[in-house]
């Protein structure tokens, strides 16, 4: 059996970190930071997702091939967001010439 068995205490500490991050994200949501509120919420959600993927989903202990499969899923998600936002968020940058309204 080459399959890695994760120690239970690692699961408990990951769970503790997830609950602490949940508390943090709720607390930060009530502090007025302007646009940074979204950044903070998404950063914390991203950290939580990475913790779940690496430890609960065992990716940290998996083969390089599996890493490629995992990253590919999120890479394609990144393409979808990057191309869509590069369109929508830049539409107001250039004035439309007359007759194109």
């Amino acid at each position, binding site marked *: *059996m*080459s*399959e890695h*068995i*994760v120690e*239970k205490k690692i*699961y*408990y500490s990951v*769970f503790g970190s*997830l*609950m602490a991050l*949940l508390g943090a*994200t*709720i607390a930060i*949501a*009530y*502090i*007025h*930071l302007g646009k940074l*509120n*979204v950044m903070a*919420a*998404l950063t*914390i*959600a991203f950290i*939580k*997702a990475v913790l*779940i*993927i690496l*430890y*609960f*989903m*065992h990716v940290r202990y*998996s*083969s390089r*091939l*599996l890493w490629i*499969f*995992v990253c*590919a*899923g*999120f890479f*394609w*998600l990144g393409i*979808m*967001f990057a191309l*869509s*936002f590069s369109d*929508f*968020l830049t539409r107001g940058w250039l004035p439309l010439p007359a007759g194109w309204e």
Partner: protein
Amino acid sequence: MPEHSTALAHQFDDIDQQHESASLGMWIFLATEIMFFGGMFLGYSLYRSVYHPAWAEASRHLDVVLGGINTGVLLCSSLTMALAVHAAQLGGRRTVVALLIATILLGSVFLGIKSVEYYQKYEEHFIPGPHFHFEGPNGTHAQIFFSFYFVMTGMHALHMIIGIGIMLVMIALTLKRRFSPEYYFPVEMTGLYWHFVDIVWVFLFPLLYLVDRS
């Protein structure tokens, strides 16, 4: 290897290769799920950038306390799921069944709280459609917010119901002694699915409930 004969499918060289194939296949499926939910997250984000005042106002009508408790419940269920896979790796059948039942119960608590929230939204006339009612000038755009809210949380809840169904099958298979420390992959793949559903909620909760609170 006679003791492998029940677990090892004949097309694989050894049990490790079989395990790797199961994980890769599950992650390909999860990649399609990432894109499925990703499309809804993209739509939500684009509309939020266009109709931000309405989005912020409508989002404040959601119940942070219930949403926060639900996030905690779901994280607990991910822990019991991870421990169930751990027990399956060690071959503790009774522990696996107990932890899967705990995961199902926690998942049911989540769905119960979610239905309480849905009922509150129903009473407040926030269900999109002819009876939708939202005070102020942002009503039309708030209806789009609630459409996203119900579709995204509804698809998430549907995934949880399917996950509970899969766990019931895993309990039955465990009781039939189908799994061993050599072959527990279906329990582990069920875990991957459940953790994925948890990750979706980890992003849904702040985006729907939190980002426009302050």
